[in-house]
């Protein structure tokens, strides 16, 4: 039990500390692919450090909700990082929340961010909140359907059991998971405010979604949000790995497999980050009202995945 708790804390801390690195890697790859000279891979850490040192500038009318929200968002993402198996499976905290609760955690963070964006009452804040909620009302059920497909295969909504089934049982090809994987990729781009749904580098008012919500934040609050964003990307990547490429994650209590698991994780993240940068480079951002169609497609694909499971795999 003690080793379990230790591993749990270790893995969560590792996720929190490594998350900006993944962000830095994606940015670097993108810069390379676009023929720019890349910022160092540690750039996100420097940004976060710089932001923590600054004085927070807060609007006169800001309510306590505005100041509380960044902490809440960060805590939610840290919690999510504690649930998703990255290097070891079956951690003591994982029975406290299953995949449905994981979707709930993401939703909680999103609702707080949207509410905080509306708090000051600027036009951009409400605009961002409205667009974010529009994106999420399709992305969230689609994500849930992806999880459901995986849950139906493994007969459980517990992430450790899902990973255990997919990674360590005999190798079977599940057609339903192919649908789910495509849907999952589409949802992750939307949820992480990446191209083609949103553009993390833009501050152009007509197109921004996520950036519009955090315009009013500065200093430590902004640092926490940026960190949470990096953490969210990390958690989604880890989720994608856990659901669709789970090989290499150590089984419960198998300490000898840990070094290999860390290496496997790093390899998969490097490849995944480069893939994300590549996909972002070759695609263009969509108009806002194309996004519901994009996510509607993701939703339908995920439902199709579930139907496929019922038709072919039961």
């Amino acid at each position, binding site marked *: 039990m003690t080793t379990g708790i230790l591993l749990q804390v270790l893995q969560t801390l590792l996720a929190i500390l490594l998350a900006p690195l993944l962000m830095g890697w994606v940015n670097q790859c993108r810069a390379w692919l676009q023929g720019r000279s890349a910022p160092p891979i540690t750039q996100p850490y420097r940004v976060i450090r710089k932001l923590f040192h600054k004085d927070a500038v807060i609007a006169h009318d800001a309510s306590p909700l505005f100041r509380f929200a960044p*902490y809440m968002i960060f*805590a*939610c993402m840290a919690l999510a990082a504690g649930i998703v198996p990255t290097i070891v499976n079956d951690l003591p905290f994982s029975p406290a929340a*299953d995949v449905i609760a994981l979707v709930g955690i993401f939703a909680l963070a999103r*609702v707080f961010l949207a*509410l905080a964006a509306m708090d000051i009452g600027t036009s951009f804040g409400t605009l961002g909140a409205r667009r974010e909620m529009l994106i999420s009302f399709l992305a969230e059920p689609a994500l849930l359907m992806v999880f459901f497909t995986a849950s139906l295969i493994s007969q*459980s*909504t517990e992430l450790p059991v899902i990973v255990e089934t997919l990674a360590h049982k005999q190798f079977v090809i599940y057609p339903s998971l192919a649908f789910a994987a495509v849907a999952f990729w589409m949802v992750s781009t939307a949820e992480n405010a990446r191209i083609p749904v949103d553009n993390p580098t833009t501050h152009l008012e007509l197109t921004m979604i996520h950036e519009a919500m955090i315009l009013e934040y500065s200093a430590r609050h902004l640092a*926490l949000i940026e960190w949470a964003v990096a953490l969210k990307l990390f958690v989604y990547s880890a989720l994608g790995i856990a659901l669709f490429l789970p090989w290499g994650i150590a089984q419960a209590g198998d300490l000898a497999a840990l070094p290999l698991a860390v290496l496997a994780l790093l390899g998969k993240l490097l490849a995944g980050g480069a893939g994300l940068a590549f996909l972002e480079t070759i695609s263009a951002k969509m108009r806002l009202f194309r996004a519901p169609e994009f996510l509607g497609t993701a939703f339908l694909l995920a439902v199709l995945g579930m139907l496929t499971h019922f038709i072919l795999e039961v």
Partner: protein
Amino acid sequence: MPEPIPLQWAWGIVLYWLLLAGASLLLQRRGHLVTSLVMPLGALGALAIAAVGVAGLVLPGGHFVLPIGLPDLPFHLRLDALSGFFLVLLGGAAFGVTVYAVGYFRTMAAGPLALLSLWYHLFLAGMVLVLLADDAYAFMVAWELMALSSYFLVTTDHKISDIRRAGFLYLLIAHVGAVSLLLCFGVLQGGHGAYTFDYMRSAELTPFWASVAFLLALFGFGAKAGLVPMHVWLPEAHPAAPSPVSALMSGVMLKTAIYGLLRVTFDLLNVQIAWWGTLALALGLLTALYGVIFAAVQSDMKRLLAWSSIENIGIILAGFGLTVIFFADGKGALAALTMTALLYHALNHAFFKGLLFVGTGSVLHSTGVRHMGALGGLIRRMPWTAWLTLVGALAIAGMPPLNGFVSEWLLLQAFLLTPGLAHNYLNMVIPVAAAAIAMAAALAAYVMVKFFGVVFLGQPRAENLKHAHDAGWPERLGMLWLAAACVLLGLFPAMVIDALAPVTRLLISQTLVNDGNWLFLAPVSAERASYAPLVFLLVVLAVLLVTFLAVRRVYHGRIRRADPWDCGYAEQDARMQDSAEGFGQPIRQVFDVFMRVEREMPDPFDRKPHYRGDSRDKIWLLLYQPIADLATWLSAQAGRLQHGRIQWYLVYSFATLIFLLVFTR
């Protein structure tokens, strides 16, 4: 036979409320006594009825016959686990709402206040009698008492013609539903000619007549619950009523319909057929999606909540449909899971919807505005109301670790356990249904961000909001009670499920087994799924605290206040924020097939531009408008017979006489 104690108590509380109702009539000139004495006493009654409900869940049920009613038709009362559960729901929610009402109605004029108190207590007594009734006659009398008293509560401000209209619509649909229930009981007695529920339980109905009875019950109770397409009264009547009354109607009265549906389907009928469940599931999903889409485009905050009630009733009904499907298919454990989920959701909805309605009541009281476009920024003027309402909003949006999440979680779990139903088409229906529920839940978050963000956050959209004052202490206590229930029901689901076990055992002779302990909720088995909200909350709090302290300790807590930054625009005002219509615009664009939108665009040179976008319910236009037109046409035709000449009326009488002489001898 010795009479069972809890039931006696319940009957005693009904009498006590009737007494209070009578006493308020005597206090027509002493309004302060109504709020400072009668209503607090009524609240105590609510608390007592909740205790009786708990006793009804734990102790063996009992029944007795009251010597009132018609000569051969005395009232039969019975308290069992099902009515016990709904009594807990009623008492728990009504206690918070009534405590709130003590403060809310304080400023009302004495005369109307006394009348309101009369109907209020009659309404509570009527609902309790509905839950206790053990024969069709008592049930219908109680049902009518509930409907009529709530009609008078809805029309409290009867001087406003829109409110009278809303009340009339409510009364009409309530009675169409009641007629259907009457027919349903007629079928259920199955030729015995005896209308006690005991006889109905023993009646052997053929599948055809059982189906007829079920459909009549679904229609009758659906009209009361706000099932699409009988929902039209709900968004009209709920905003019209005073807020505590809306809270009771939405939180508790709609649940009596769910009670009735459960009672008829699982207790009185002795067969359950799978297609009933499919029908209820389909209607429930339609209701849930339809309700939440319309909630997202509303601009009146109480109307928004009313539509959201329709959504929640849809979710409950979808759970009911699944229960019937599983039970008819012989999957008792799954049926127990979905029934637990639906009861849990009903209980949750009573508390969070009650909380949200009384929260809007405080806003209305302090600003006099229901239209969200004229509100904003109230979190700074009314912190108590705002933060407590936030709890309700997060709970209804299904956010962990609050209560709304638990019931939706249980329902979603049921979908994942379904493979291998007897009918193949059901295996196709289930994933689609799960997707619909998930989408309704996600849209509910949209609705609640809109509701809370527009009303409480941002800058005040009107000048008078600067003088808004927070709710007084009775209101705060009432809201605290409801909010605490939302939190506790969310944190201790394992205990709630244990408490629900007698109800499922009574109705489907099976209970939901919790594989975890009091901390972990694990329906079916811990391998399949588990959820521990308390651990969840503690970890969130711990991370919050550690992050906060670490940031403070390693860095600093310096803050500078400045004007908000708005991309370099020189001037900002509150009109630059989203209005309620603006926030709902994406949903209106995505789902415009469901609604007919009426727009009013301002002239570009208008100094005080006014934009209005009204999304009308197409069902009203397609289904009800033709009926209304037909009724008007028929009455116009009937009017032709009447031209005020005495000769013609004598001819009519003569013709009638001849007719009667020919056909009746």
